[in-house]
Protein backbone atom coordinates (compact mmCIF):
# COMPACT_ATOMS: atom_id res chain seq x y z
CA UNK A 1 0.00 0.00 0.00
CA UNK A 2 1.27 3.44 -0.81
CA UNK A 3 0.53 6.14 1.71
CA UNK A 4 0.44 9.18 -0.55
CA UNK A 5 0.01 9.64 -4.25
CA UNK A 6 3.07 10.92 -6.01
CA UNK A 7 2.71 14.61 -6.73
CA UNK A 8 2.17 15.67 -10.30
CA UNK A 9 5.32 16.88 -12.00
CA UNK A 10 4.66 20.59 -12.36
CA UNK A 11 6.51 22.17 -15.26
CA UNK A 12 8.50 25.13 -14.02
CA UNK A 13 8.11 27.94 -16.50
CA UNK A 14 11.13 30.09 -17.14
CA UNK A 15 10.68 33.83 -17.61
CA UNK A 16 10.82 34.36 -21.34
CA UNK A 17 11.95 37.99 -21.23
CA UNK A 18 15.34 37.65 -19.57
CA UNK A 19 16.58 34.13 -20.00
CA UNK A 20 20.29 34.06 -19.04
CA UNK A 21 21.12 31.44 -21.68
CA UNK A 22 19.46 33.22 -24.61
CA UNK A 23 22.31 35.61 -25.58
CA UNK A 24 24.70 32.66 -25.66
CA UNK A 25 22.34 30.57 -27.81
CA UNK A 26 21.79 33.50 -30.19
CA UNK A 27 25.53 34.11 -30.50
CA UNK A 28 26.17 30.41 -31.15
CA UNK A 29 23.47 30.34 -33.83
CA UNK A 30 24.99 33.40 -35.50
CA UNK A 31 28.48 31.84 -35.48
CA UNK A 32 27.29 28.48 -36.82
CA UNK A 33 24.75 29.77 -39.33
CA UNK A 34 26.28 33.05 -40.46
CA UNK A 35 29.93 33.76 -39.57
CA UNK A 36 31.41 30.33 -40.33
CA UNK A 37 29.53 29.93 -43.66
CA UNK A 38 30.58 33.48 -44.64
CA UNK A 39 34.15 32.60 -43.63
CA UNK A 40 34.00 29.53 -45.87
CA UNK A 41 32.91 31.72 -48.81
CA UNK A 42 35.78 34.17 -48.18
CA UNK A 43 38.36 31.38 -47.84
CA UNK A 44 37.29 29.50 -50.97
CA UNK A 45 37.13 32.68 -53.05
CA UNK A 46 40.61 33.73 -51.91
CA UNK A 47 42.04 30.29 -52.68
CA UNK A 48 40.30 30.24 -56.06
CA UNK A 49 41.78 33.64 -56.95
CA UNK A 50 45.25 32.44 -55.96
CA UNK A 51 44.79 29.30 -58.08
CA UNK A 52 43.28 31.12 -61.04
CA UNK A 53 46.55 31.41 -63.04
CA UNK A 54 47.13 27.66 -62.66
CA UNK A 55 43.65 26.58 -63.82
CA UNK A 56 43.03 25.27 -67.37
CA UNK A 57 40.68 27.01 -69.77
CA UNK A 58 38.23 25.47 -70.41
CA UNK A 59 38.03 23.69 -67.08
CA UNK A 60 35.60 20.98 -66.02
CA UNK A 61 32.56 22.51 -64.28
CA UNK A 62 30.07 19.68 -64.33
CA UNK A 63 30.34 15.97 -63.58
CA UNK A 64 28.15 12.99 -64.23
CA UNK A 65 27.06 10.88 -61.30
CA UNK A 66 29.99 8.53 -61.92
CA UNK A 67 32.56 11.30 -61.49
CA UNK A 68 33.27 11.82 -65.20
CA UNK A 69 33.51 15.45 -66.25
CA UNK A 70 30.79 16.28 -68.80
CA UNK A 71 30.57 20.06 -68.77
CA UNK A 72 33.31 22.60 -69.49
CA UNK A 73 33.60 26.38 -69.15
CA UNK A 74 35.96 29.21 -68.34
CA UNK A 75 37.44 29.27 -64.78
CA UNK A 76 35.59 32.59 -64.40
CA UNK A 77 32.34 30.64 -64.05
CA UNK A 78 33.58 28.95 -60.87
CA UNK A 79 34.83 32.28 -59.56
CA UNK A 80 31.25 33.58 -59.72
CA UNK A 81 29.16 30.47 -59.11
CA UNK A 82 30.79 29.08 -55.96
CA UNK A 83 30.75 32.32 -53.91
CA UNK A 84 27.27 33.15 -55.19
CA UNK A 85 25.89 29.75 -54.17
CA UNK A 86 27.64 30.07 -50.80
CA UNK A 87 26.11 33.51 -50.22
CA UNK A 88 22.60 32.42 -51.22
CA UNK A 89 22.83 29.49 -48.81
CA UNK A 90 24.11 31.74 -46.03
CA UNK A 91 21.23 34.11 -46.66
CA UNK A 92 18.90 31.31 -45.54
CA UNK A 93 20.12 32.07 -42.02
CA UNK A 94 18.03 35.23 -42.12
CA UNK A 95 14.82 33.16 -42.24
CA UNK A 96 15.32 32.94 -38.45
CA UNK A 97 14.88 36.73 -38.40
CA UNK A 98 11.20 36.17 -39.20
CA UNK A 99 10.94 35.44 -35.51
CA UNK A 100 11.57 39.09 -34.68
CA UNK A 101 8.53 39.95 -36.78
CA UNK A 102 6.57 37.25 -34.97
CA UNK A 103 7.66 38.59 -31.58
CA UNK A 104 6.09 41.92 -32.43
CA UNK A 105 2.77 40.25 -33.23
CA UNK A 106 2.21 38.88 -29.74
CA UNK A 107 2.96 39.88 -26.18
CA UNK A 108 5.80 38.27 -24.26
CA UNK A 109 9.48 37.98 -24.98
CA UNK A 110 11.60 35.72 -27.15
CA UNK A 111 10.94 32.08 -27.72
CA UNK A 112 13.67 29.61 -28.61
CA UNK A 113 13.47 26.03 -29.77
CA UNK A 114 15.06 23.20 -31.76
CA UNK A 115 14.34 24.99 -35.04
CA UNK A 116 16.63 27.83 -33.95
CA UNK A 117 19.41 25.25 -33.72
CA UNK A 118 18.50 23.34 -36.84
CA UNK A 119 18.44 26.20 -39.36
CA UNK A 120 22.03 27.40 -38.65
CA UNK A 121 23.20 23.76 -38.75
CA UNK A 122 21.56 23.24 -42.16
CA UNK A 123 23.13 26.47 -43.48
CA UNK A 124 26.54 25.36 -42.23
CA UNK A 125 26.08 21.89 -43.74
CA UNK A 126 25.17 23.27 -47.16
CA UNK A 127 27.99 25.82 -46.97
CA UNK A 128 30.47 23.04 -46.17
CA UNK A 129 29.17 21.00 -49.13
CA UNK A 130 29.87 23.84 -51.59
CA UNK A 131 33.22 24.57 -49.95
CA UNK A 132 34.45 20.96 -50.17
CA UNK A 133 33.12 20.52 -53.69
CA UNK A 134 34.90 23.69 -54.83
CA UNK A 135 38.17 22.72 -53.14
CA UNK A 136 38.26 19.13 -54.44
CA UNK A 137 37.23 19.86 -58.03
CA UNK A 138 39.51 22.88 -58.32
CA UNK A 139 42.65 21.34 -56.82
CA UNK A 140 42.20 18.29 -59.09
CA UNK A 141 42.59 20.57 -62.13
CA UNK A 142 45.56 22.65 -60.97
CA UNK A 143 48.33 22.85 -63.62
CA UNK A 144 46.23 20.87 -66.10
CA UNK A 145 46.55 21.98 -69.74
CA UNK A 146 42.89 21.29 -70.54
CA UNK A 147 39.96 20.39 -68.33
CA UNK A 148 39.05 17.63 -70.76
CA UNK A 149 42.21 15.74 -69.73
CA UNK A 150 40.83 15.32 -66.20
CA UNK A 151 40.74 11.69 -65.07
CA UNK A 152 37.40 10.40 -63.71
CA UNK A 153 37.37 11.17 -60.03
CA UNK A 154 34.51 9.64 -58.09
CA UNK A 155 35.96 10.66 -54.72
CA UNK A 156 35.51 14.37 -55.51
CA UNK A 157 31.80 13.71 -56.06
CA UNK A 158 31.33 11.57 -52.95
CA UNK A 159 33.52 13.09 -50.22
CA UNK A 160 31.66 16.46 -49.94
CA UNK A 161 28.52 14.71 -48.64
CA UNK A 162 29.95 13.06 -45.51
CA UNK A 163 31.84 16.31 -44.88
CA UNK A 164 28.58 18.28 -45.14
CA UNK A 165 26.73 15.90 -42.84
CA UNK A 166 29.55 15.99 -40.30
CA UNK A 167 29.60 19.79 -40.40
CA UNK A 168 25.84 19.92 -39.90
CA UNK A 169 25.88 17.54 -36.94
CA UNK A 170 28.81 19.39 -35.41
CA UNK A 171 27.06 22.72 -35.95
CA UNK A 172 23.90 21.43 -34.30
CA UNK A 173 25.60 20.11 -31.20
CA UNK A 174 28.01 23.04 -30.91
CA UNK A 175 24.99 25.19 -30.01
CA UNK A 176 23.56 25.07 -26.51
CA UNK A 177 20.37 23.09 -26.05
CA UNK A 178 17.85 25.67 -25.00
CA UNK A 179 14.09 25.77 -25.03
CA UNK A 180 12.22 28.90 -24.05
CA UNK A 181 8.51 28.31 -24.37
CA UNK A 182 6.10 31.13 -25.06
CA UNK A 183 4.57 32.19 -21.80
CA UNK A 184 1.02 32.89 -22.64
CA UNK A 185 -1.12 35.23 -20.62
CA UNK A 186 -3.73 32.60 -19.80
CA UNK A 187 -5.97 31.51 -16.95
CA UNK A 188 -6.22 27.96 -15.73
CA UNK A 189 -9.53 26.33 -16.56
CA UNK A 190 -11.79 26.05 -13.53
CA UNK A 191 -13.23 22.55 -13.09
CA UNK A 192 -17.01 22.35 -12.81
CA UNK A 193 -18.37 20.93 -9.55
CA UNK A 194 -20.21 17.78 -10.45
CA UNK A 195 -22.54 15.51 -8.53
CA UNK A 196 -21.49 11.86 -8.10
CA UNK A 197 -23.25 10.56 -11.20
CA UNK A 198 -22.99 13.77 -13.21
CA UNK A 199 -21.12 14.06 -16.47
CA UNK A 200 -20.16 17.00 -18.60
CA UNK A 201 -19.24 17.16 -22.27
CA UNK A 202 -18.38 20.05 -24.53
CA UNK A 203 -18.86 19.95 -28.27
CA UNK A 204 -17.70 22.60 -30.66
CA UNK A 205 -15.57 23.21 -33.70
CA UNK A 206 -12.50 25.00 -34.97
CA UNK A 207 -13.75 26.54 -38.19
CA UNK A 208 -11.78 28.14 -40.98
CA UNK A 209 -12.24 31.89 -41.22
CA UNK A 210 -12.60 33.83 -44.46
CA UNK A 211 -9.06 35.32 -44.35
CA UNK A 212 -7.64 31.81 -43.92
CA UNK A 213 -9.60 30.50 -46.90
CA UNK A 214 -8.47 33.46 -49.02
CA UNK A 215 -4.85 32.77 -48.07
CA UNK A 216 -5.24 29.10 -48.94
CA UNK A 217 -6.95 29.95 -52.22
CA UNK A 218 -3.96 32.16 -53.04
CA UNK A 219 -1.54 29.37 -52.17
CA UNK A 220 -3.58 26.99 -54.32
CA UNK A 221 -3.38 29.32 -57.32
CA UNK A 222 0.41 29.67 -56.93
CA UNK A 223 0.89 25.91 -56.49
CA UNK A 224 -1.30 25.06 -59.50
CA UNK A 225 0.38 27.68 -61.68
CA UNK A 226 3.88 26.40 -60.83
CA UNK A 227 2.79 22.82 -61.42
CA UNK A 228 1.34 23.63 -64.85
CA UNK A 229 4.42 25.66 -65.75
CA UNK A 230 6.80 22.86 -64.69
CA UNK A 231 4.82 20.23 -66.59
CA UNK A 232 5.00 22.24 -69.83
CA UNK A 233 8.79 22.65 -69.60
CA UNK A 234 10.87 20.55 -72.04
CA UNK A 235 12.74 18.36 -71.28
CA UNK A 236 10.41 17.18 -68.54
CA UNK A 237 12.15 17.07 -65.19
CA UNK A 238 10.66 14.24 -63.19
CA UNK A 239 12.01 15.62 -59.91
CA UNK A 240 10.56 19.11 -60.50
CA UNK A 241 7.18 17.68 -61.52
CA UNK A 242 7.16 15.46 -58.42
CA UNK A 243 8.12 18.30 -56.06
CA UNK A 244 5.52 20.76 -57.39
CA UNK A 245 2.94 17.98 -57.61
CA UNK A 246 3.48 17.06 -53.96
CA UNK A 247 3.31 20.75 -52.98
CA UNK A 248 0.03 21.14 -54.85
CA UNK A 249 -1.49 18.06 -53.22
CA UNK A 250 -0.23 19.18 -49.79
CA UNK A 251 -1.84 22.63 -50.12
CA UNK A 252 -5.06 21.06 -51.38
CA UNK A 253 -5.23 18.51 -48.54
CA UNK A 254 -4.33 21.08 -45.87
CA UNK A 255 -7.00 23.46 -47.12
CA UNK A 256 -9.64 20.77 -47.24
CA UNK A 257 -8.99 19.11 -43.88
CA UNK A 258 -8.79 22.37 -41.96
CA UNK A 259 -12.12 23.71 -43.21
CA UNK A 260 -13.53 22.37 -39.99
CA UNK A 261 -12.19 20.44 -37.01
CA UNK A 262 -14.91 19.02 -34.78
CA UNK A 263 -13.87 19.23 -31.16
CA UNK A 264 -15.20 16.90 -28.49
CA UNK A 265 -14.36 17.12 -24.81
CA UNK A 266 -15.67 14.35 -22.59
CA UNK A 267 -14.42 12.25 -19.71
CA UNK A 268 -12.11 10.32 -22.04
CA UNK A 269 -10.25 13.43 -23.14
CA UNK A 270 -10.11 15.91 -25.98
CA UNK A 271 -10.53 15.03 -29.62
CA UNK A 272 -10.13 17.43 -32.54
CA UNK A 273 -11.02 15.64 -35.73
CA UNK A 274 -11.22 17.06 -39.20
CA UNK A 275 -14.71 16.86 -40.65
CA UNK A 276 -13.22 14.48 -43.23
CA UNK A 277 -12.28 12.04 -40.45
CA UNK A 278 -8.54 12.64 -40.81
CA UNK A 279 -6.39 14.01 -39.29
CA UNK A 280 -7.39 13.45 -35.69
CA UNK A 281 -5.65 15.02 -32.71
CA UNK A 282 -6.36 13.02 -29.59
CA UNK A 283 -5.42 13.98 -26.02
CA UNK A 284 -6.40 11.26 -23.52
CA UNK A 285 -7.64 12.48 -20.15
CA UNK A 286 -4.75 10.83 -18.24
CA UNK A 287 -2.12 12.70 -20.25
CA UNK A 288 -3.47 16.21 -19.62
CA UNK A 289 -1.23 18.20 -17.27
CA UNK A 290 -2.73 21.67 -17.63
CA UNK A 291 -5.71 23.42 -19.17
CA UNK A 292 -5.58 27.13 -19.85
CA UNK A 293 -7.82 29.60 -21.60
CA UNK A 294 -6.53 32.83 -23.10
CA UNK A 295 -5.77 34.92 -26.16
CA UNK A 296 -4.06 33.14 -29.03
CA UNK A 297 -1.97 34.96 -31.63
CA UNK A 298 -1.58 32.60 -34.62
CA UNK A 299 1.00 34.78 -36.40
CA UNK A 300 3.00 35.62 -33.30
CA UNK A 301 3.11 32.05 -32.04
CA UNK A 302 2.87 29.85 -35.13
CA UNK A 303 3.72 32.16 -38.00
CA UNK A 304 0.29 31.83 -39.55
CA UNK A 305 -3.12 30.21 -39.54
CA UNK A 306 -3.92 26.54 -39.86
CA UNK A 307 -2.59 23.28 -38.49
CA UNK A 308 0.92 24.21 -37.39
CA UNK A 309 4.00 23.68 -35.28
CA UNK A 310 5.48 26.56 -33.28
CA UNK A 311 9.16 27.31 -32.70
CA UNK A 312 8.89 26.30 -29.05
CA UNK A 313 7.29 22.99 -30.01
CA UNK A 314 3.54 23.49 -29.57
CA UNK A 315 1.07 21.98 -32.01
CA UNK A 316 -1.58 24.46 -33.04
CA UNK A 317 -4.86 24.33 -34.88
CA UNK A 318 -5.28 28.07 -35.00
CA UNK A 319 -7.63 29.89 -37.35
CA UNK A 320 -7.93 33.39 -35.94
CA UNK A 321 -6.61 35.71 -33.26
CA UNK A 322 -8.73 35.44 -30.14
CA UNK A 323 -9.80 33.14 -27.38
CA UNK A 324 -8.71 29.55 -27.29
CA UNK A 325 -7.42 26.65 -25.29
CA UNK A 326 -3.88 25.64 -24.30
CA UNK A 327 -3.54 22.05 -23.22
CA UNK A 328 -0.38 20.72 -21.57
CA UNK A 329 0.41 17.05 -22.15
CA UNK A 330 2.48 14.68 -20.00
CA UNK A 331 4.08 13.21 -23.12
CA UNK A 332 4.02 15.09 -26.35
CA UNK A 333 3.72 18.65 -27.44
CA UNK A 334 1.38 21.20 -25.90
CA UNK A 335 -1.77 21.68 -27.96
CA UNK A 336 -3.14 25.12 -28.82
CA UNK A 337 -6.55 25.49 -30.45
CA UNK A 338 -8.75 28.49 -31.17
CA UNK A 339 -12.33 27.98 -30.02
CA UNK A 340 -15.45 30.05 -29.53
CA UNK A 341 -16.78 29.84 -25.98
CA UNK A 342 -13.31 28.69 -24.88
CA UNK A 343 -14.14 29.41 -21.25
CA UNK A 344 -16.76 26.63 -21.16
CA UNK A 345 -14.48 24.28 -23.10
CA UNK A 346 -11.68 24.91 -20.60
CA UNK A 347 -14.05 24.26 -17.72
CA UNK A 348 -15.13 20.96 -19.27
CA UNK A 349 -11.57 19.88 -19.97
CA UNK A 350 -10.37 20.90 -16.49
CA UNK A 351 -13.17 18.74 -15.11
CA UNK A 352 -11.95 15.87 -17.29
CA UNK A 353 -8.39 16.33 -16.04
CA UNK A 354 -9.51 16.45 -12.41
CA UNK A 355 -11.67 13.35 -12.87
CA UNK A 356 -8.78 11.42 -14.45
CA UNK A 357 -6.48 12.38 -11.57
CA UNK A 358 -9.03 11.32 -8.97
CA UNK A 359 -9.48 8.05 -10.83
CA UNK A 360 -5.74 7.44 -10.84
CA UNK A 361 -5.56 8.22 -7.13
CA UNK A 362 -8.25 5.62 -6.39
CA UNK A 363 -6.44 3.04 -8.50
CA UNK A 364 -3.17 3.97 -6.77
CA UNK A 365 -4.70 3.41 -3.34
CA UNK A 366 -6.00 0.00 -4.30
CA UNK A 367 -2.71 -1.29 -5.69
Amino acid at each position, binding site marked *: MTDAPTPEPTPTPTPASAHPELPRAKAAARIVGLYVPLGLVVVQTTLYLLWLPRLPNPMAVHWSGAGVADGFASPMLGLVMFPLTGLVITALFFTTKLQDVQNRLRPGGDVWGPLNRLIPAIVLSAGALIFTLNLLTTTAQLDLANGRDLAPNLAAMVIPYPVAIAAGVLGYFAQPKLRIAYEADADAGEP*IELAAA*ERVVWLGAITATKPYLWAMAGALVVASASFIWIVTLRPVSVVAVAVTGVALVAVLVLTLVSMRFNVRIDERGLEARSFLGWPRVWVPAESITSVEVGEIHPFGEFGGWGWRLSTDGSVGIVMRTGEGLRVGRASGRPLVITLDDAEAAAAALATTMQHARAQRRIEGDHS
Partner: protein
Amino acid sequence: MLIRIDEASERAIYAQIADSVRSDIAAGKIRSGTTLPAAKRLAEALDINVHTVLRAYQQLRDERLVDLRRGRGAVVTSLAETLVELSGEVRALVDRAHALGVSQETVAAMVAGIGGQGPPPAGRDPIPLQFSKEQAAA
Protein backbone atom coordinates in the same frame (compact mmCIF):
# COMPACT_ATOMS: atom_id res chain seq x y z
CA MET B 1 -21.80 23.79 -26.35
CA LEU B 2 -21.65 22.54 -22.78
CA ILE B 3 -23.94 19.65 -21.85
CA ARG B 4 -24.32 18.37 -18.31
CA ILE B 5 -26.26 15.26 -17.40
CA ASP B 6 -26.76 13.67 -14.01
CA GLU B 7 -27.87 10.06 -14.15
CA ALA B 8 -28.84 10.15 -10.48
CA SER B 9 -31.24 13.03 -11.08
CA GLU B 10 -34.97 12.43 -11.29
CA ARG B 11 -35.14 14.60 -14.37
CA ALA B 12 -35.02 12.58 -17.58
CA ILE B 13 -31.71 12.59 -19.43
CA TYR B 14 -33.27 13.99 -22.61
CA ALA B 15 -34.76 16.85 -20.59
CA GLN B 16 -31.38 17.57 -19.03
CA ILE B 17 -29.79 17.76 -22.49
CA ALA B 18 -32.54 20.11 -23.62
CA ASP B 19 -31.97 22.20 -20.47
CA SER B 20 -28.26 22.52 -21.24
CA VAL B 21 -28.87 23.60 -24.83
CA ARG B 22 -31.64 25.98 -23.78
CA SER B 23 -29.47 27.66 -21.17
CA ASP B 24 -26.66 28.11 -23.72
CA ILE B 25 -29.19 29.66 -26.10
CA ALA B 26 -30.56 31.95 -23.39
CA ALA B 27 -27.00 32.99 -22.47
CA GLY B 28 -26.38 33.99 -26.09
CA LYS B 29 -23.67 31.36 -26.54
CA ILE B 30 -25.61 29.58 -29.25
CA ARG B 31 -27.06 31.99 -31.79
CA SER B 32 -29.83 31.53 -34.29
CA GLY B 33 -28.67 29.78 -37.43
CA THR B 34 -26.17 27.61 -35.57
CA THR B 35 -26.33 23.91 -36.30
CA LEU B 36 -26.33 21.80 -33.15
CA PRO B 37 -23.88 18.87 -33.09
CA ALA B 38 -25.07 15.74 -34.87
CA ALA B 39 -27.11 13.60 -32.48
CA LYS B 40 -24.73 10.69 -33.04
CA ARG B 41 -21.70 12.75 -32.02
CA LEU B 42 -23.36 14.01 -28.88
CA ALA B 43 -24.59 10.52 -27.99
CA GLU B 44 -21.06 9.14 -28.37
CA ALA B 45 -19.58 11.87 -26.19
CA LEU B 46 -22.19 11.35 -23.47
CA ASP B 47 -22.07 7.57 -23.91
CA ILE B 48 -25.86 7.36 -24.18
CA ASN B 49 -28.35 6.13 -26.74
CA VAL B 50 -28.72 8.31 -29.83
CA HIS B 51 -32.51 8.23 -29.43
CA THR B 52 -32.19 10.05 -26.12
CA VAL B 53 -30.38 12.89 -27.87
CA LEU B 54 -32.90 12.89 -30.70
CA ARG B 55 -35.67 13.10 -28.12
CA ALA B 56 -33.95 16.13 -26.58
CA TYR B 57 -33.73 17.76 -30.01
CA GLN B 58 -37.41 16.97 -30.62
CA GLN B 59 -38.23 18.59 -27.30
CA LEU B 60 -36.38 21.71 -28.44
CA ARG B 61 -38.21 21.57 -31.74
CA ASP B 62 -41.52 21.42 -29.89
CA GLU B 63 -40.38 24.55 -28.07
CA ARG B 64 -39.66 26.01 -31.54
CA LEU B 65 -36.07 26.65 -30.54
CA VAL B 66 -34.66 24.44 -33.27
CA ASP B 67 -35.64 23.44 -36.76
CA LEU B 68 -35.15 19.77 -37.57
CA ARG B 69 -34.54 19.30 -41.25
CA ARG B 70 -33.42 16.15 -42.92
CA GLY B 71 -29.84 16.49 -44.09
CA ARG B 72 -29.28 19.80 -42.36
CA GLY B 73 -29.45 18.72 -38.74
CA ALA B 74 -30.85 20.75 -35.88
CA VAL B 75 -30.66 24.44 -36.67
CA VAL B 76 -31.35 27.02 -33.98
CA THR B 77 -34.28 29.30 -34.91
CA SER B 78 -34.59 33.05 -34.56
CA LEU B 79 -36.49 32.45 -31.35
CA ALA B 80 -33.00 32.22 -29.80
CA GLU B 81 -32.68 36.02 -29.80
CA THR B 82 -36.05 36.37 -28.15
CA LEU B 83 -34.89 33.95 -25.47
CA VAL B 84 -31.81 36.07 -24.80
CA GLU B 85 -34.02 39.15 -24.37
CA LEU B 86 -36.41 37.24 -22.16
CA SER B 87 -33.68 35.81 -19.95
CA GLY B 88 -32.94 39.27 -18.57
CA GLU B 89 -36.56 39.65 -17.52
CA VAL B 90 -36.62 36.17 -16.02
CA ARG B 91 -33.50 37.00 -14.02
CA ALA B 92 -35.15 40.20 -12.79
CA LEU B 93 -38.27 38.27 -11.81
CA VAL B 94 -36.30 35.64 -9.89
CA ASP B 95 -34.24 38.36 -8.17
CA ARG B 96 -37.37 40.22 -7.15
CA ALA B 97 -39.01 37.02 -5.90
CA HIS B 98 -35.85 36.26 -3.93
CA ALA B 99 -35.91 39.73 -2.36
CA LEU B 100 -39.52 39.11 -1.35
CA GLY B 101 -38.62 35.74 0.17
CA VAL B 102 -40.21 33.65 -2.58
CA SER B 103 -38.13 30.67 -3.64
CA GLN B 104 -37.11 29.90 -7.22
CA GLU B 105 -39.14 26.65 -7.09
CA THR B 106 -42.23 28.61 -6.21
CA VAL B 107 -41.67 30.99 -9.10
CA ALA B 108 -41.10 28.05 -11.45
CA ALA B 109 -44.33 26.43 -10.23
CA MET B 110 -46.18 29.71 -10.70
CA VAL B 111 -44.85 30.04 -14.25
CA ALA B 112 -45.82 26.44 -15.00
CA GLY B 113 -49.24 27.01 -13.40
CA ILE B 114 -50.15 29.87 -15.71
CA GLY B 115 -50.23 27.40 -18.55
CA GLY B 116 -48.88 27.78 -22.03
CA GLN B 117 -52.23 27.50 -23.81
CA GLY B 118 -53.58 30.90 -22.81
CA PRO B 119 -53.64 33.80 -25.24
CA PRO B 120 -50.67 36.16 -25.28
CA PRO B 121 -51.04 39.19 -23.00
CA ALA B 122 -53.15 41.94 -24.47
CA GLY B 123 -51.35 44.74 -26.25
CA ARG B 124 -48.48 42.48 -27.19
CA ASP B 125 -47.77 40.62 -30.37
CA PRO B 126 -47.04 36.94 -30.07
CA ILE B 127 -43.38 36.00 -30.30
CA PRO B 128 -42.47 36.10 -34.00
CA LEU B 129 -41.78 32.68 -35.41
CA GLN B 130 -40.43 31.81 -38.81
CA PHE B 131 -42.05 28.50 -39.39
CA SER B 132 -43.53 26.88 -42.42
CA LYS B 133 -47.08 25.57 -42.17
CA GLU B 134 -46.06 21.93 -42.50
CA GLN B 135 -43.58 22.25 -39.65
CA ALA B 136 -46.09 24.03 -37.45
CA ALA B 137 -48.51 21.21 -38.17
CA ALA B 138 -45.95 18.49 -37.49
